[in-house]
């Protein structure tokens, strides 16, 4: 018995020995402060927040343990399902909208034409403008019958549209603003990816008699696929976590039409003083995003292996 343990320990030591190099020890020692800092500023708040989901805490009191009660309440909360569906529509529309716009403009900017540099700088403006300025400016443009949008509609003989007094129209405006703010990032990243595509592939396609469209579909798109997936995942996360746009435009209204998961969590926490439920909404959002991310990674990995 003893000899087997000793033998096992010896085997373990023999396996572990190559790992315990002086370089590794030095790396571990050097990394330790950073890891400790990360644990304090990231892991601890996340763990603490997760624990709140099992309590009925308020902003002033830690509250008591309620088990899975908050998750149960959330499933029965109609406004949660509404905010979940709005978040999905918001994210999907923004990802599709700003990807198509960003890709179109990136393809255009890839070509050489007079004033390209200036055009590129101008197209970056929405991304540079602070979200408060962007949303308030849009608000002025659509707020009532005297706003710019309605003056244009009136010029074409149309009746005024009260964009912010109608839930469906407000959703459209929130999505438009988000696309307007987000597309420059998409455009810049895709432009970089396009410029990294090997030119010889296009020459080969041309020799094979491919049309422009075929070259785009069979050369460009596969080459920028990896970047596109990462960009879409990032944009989905940023859109789902966007508080500024729906809040500054309409405070999640009218009648909660543009209340996404983040605004919903904010309301629970700060308006209803229900930190437990606010944390639960936040963690459900996190779980959904993680599941989505893992699904996309698995699908793309599967496709990659199949190739």
């Amino acid at each position, binding site marked *: 018995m003893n000899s087997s343990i000793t033998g096992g320990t010896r085997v373990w030591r023999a396996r572990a020995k190559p790992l315990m190099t002086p370089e590794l020890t030095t790396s571990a020692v050097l990394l330790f402060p950073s890891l400790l800092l990360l644990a304090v500023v990231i892991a601890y708040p996340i763990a603490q927040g997760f624990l709140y989901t099992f309590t009925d805490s308020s902003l002033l009191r830690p509250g008591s343990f309620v088990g899975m009660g908050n998750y149960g309440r959330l499933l029965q909360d109609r406004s949660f399902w509404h905010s979940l569906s709005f978040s999905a529509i918001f994210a999907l529309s923004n990802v599709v909208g700003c990807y198509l716009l960003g890709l179109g403009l990136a393809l255009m900017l890839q070509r050489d034409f007079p004033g390209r540099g200036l055009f590129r700088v101008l197209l970056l403006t929405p991304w540079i403008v602070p979200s408060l300025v962007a949303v308030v400016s849009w608000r002025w443009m659509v707020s009532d019958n005297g706003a710019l949008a309605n003056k244009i509609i009136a010029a074409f003989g149309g009746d005024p549209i009260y964009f912010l*007094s109608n839930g469906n129209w407000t959703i459209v405006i929130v999505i438009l603003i988000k696309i307007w703010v987000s597309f420059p990032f998409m455009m810049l990243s895709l432009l970089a990816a396009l410029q990294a595509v090997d030119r010889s592939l296009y020459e080969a396609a041309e020799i094979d008699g491919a049309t422009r469209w075929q070259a785009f579909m069979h050369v460009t798109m596969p080459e920028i696929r990896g970047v596109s997936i990462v960009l879409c995942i990032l944009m989905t996360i940023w859109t789902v976590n966007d508080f500024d746009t729906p809040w500054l435009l309409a405070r999640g209204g009218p009648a909660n039409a543009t209340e996404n998961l983040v605004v919903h969590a904010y309301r629970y926490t700060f308006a209803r*003083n229900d930190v437990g439920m606010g944390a639960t909404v936040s963690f459900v959002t996190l779980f959904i995003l993680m599941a989505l991310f893992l699904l996309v990674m698995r699908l793309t990995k599967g496709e990659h292996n199949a190739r």
Partner: protein
Amino acid sequence: MKAKLTSSNRSRRQFLKALIVASFLPGAFVGAAHAQPVEINFWDMIWGPAEYAAVAQKLVDKFNASQNDIKVVYRSVPWDSWYQTYVTAIASGSAPDISTGGSFQAVQFYSMDEIYPVDELIEEMKKDGSLSDFSQSALDTVRYHDHYVALPWGNDIRAYLYRKDILAANGVAAPSTWEEFRAAAKKVTKNGVFGLVCSGDQNGFQLMVTAAVNNGGGLFDPDRKPAITGERAREALQFVSSLVKDGSVNPASAGYSYDDSAASFMRGESAFFLDNPNVTNSDNAPKDKIGILPPLKGPHGDLGTFNGANNIMVYKQSKHPKETLKFLRWWSENQLPLWTEGHAGNLPVRASLLKDPYFQNNPILKYTADNYIPIGKSLGAAASGTFPQLNVVDGDGFLNSLAQRIFQGEDPQGPAQDAQAYLKGIMSK
């Protein structure tokens, strides 16, 4: 018998002298420490235009100059995220000694054992007769479980203002009943001008509450049970809905913020606007074109309007509650410049302050003091007193949704039922 002054005697005497001096030194230090004034932190919300905070600071300086043992440190607190500001301060143990704040902040924090009740100050004022400067209804707004959780200081009352030019152009007299109001609003609605403008935020829900209390109802019944679907509140919501269906309410109202709606009224794009009458003193108000309607009489002959009482509260974390109460009393008695120089947006609670020429010489403010303040009712109407859940009702936003849905033209029954169910949820906690 003179003692011979030997060196040993001398040294003994020197030692005794030193001992006597040394024994007084700590006392001197303690005395010096006692001479340091007690520091009180006063957090005051921004209750008026830019000059308000400067006037309030000047007032605090005046108090400090009159005191040797108390020094008040003034801090002006913006309304953005005000609730988080206070909650964070309390949770971290750095609450102010005293503050102004949201209408129901005091009662909510009191229920969390964070507020020092001002009962002894009320008792003191009762004894010397100065409490009679406050109306009983004003004191009721800060009374909870037989304690006074704050001292009231401002009336944030709502009254219907109207554009004299629009009514005159349409040959319409200032209405005094709901029926006349509806007819007038309908008549003036044309050519881009609407009868009424409101907003989808606080002002929207205040319009609903005003209509309900005007009709003898409210969000609650006298037993503090939700009553949004009660007969009187239902009639009130139906009245607002009828204005919407007539086309008399600016269709942008559901999406408007308060500032948007106030600007629209000031530009002459609507005839009526529900607001604090003090708004007529703002720089962009065309003062000669704005009048105040008499309190509207509901279909059952009731009068009433919404009054969000502003109060000032003392925190339990204060290490100097006695001194804080002393300052509170002084502040309450000497705060007139907050209006006359600082142009605070509300109206004083103290009857003596309302007698000042600043209010008496302003026809709209005088009319408000004489006719609206006596019929003002709190968010808790038709229940009496105050209760902690009102802070959630005030800040949650579900009443904003109620107003927005009605402004969008939805029949009030569905939104009222949803709001009632939601309110029941709040009250059950």
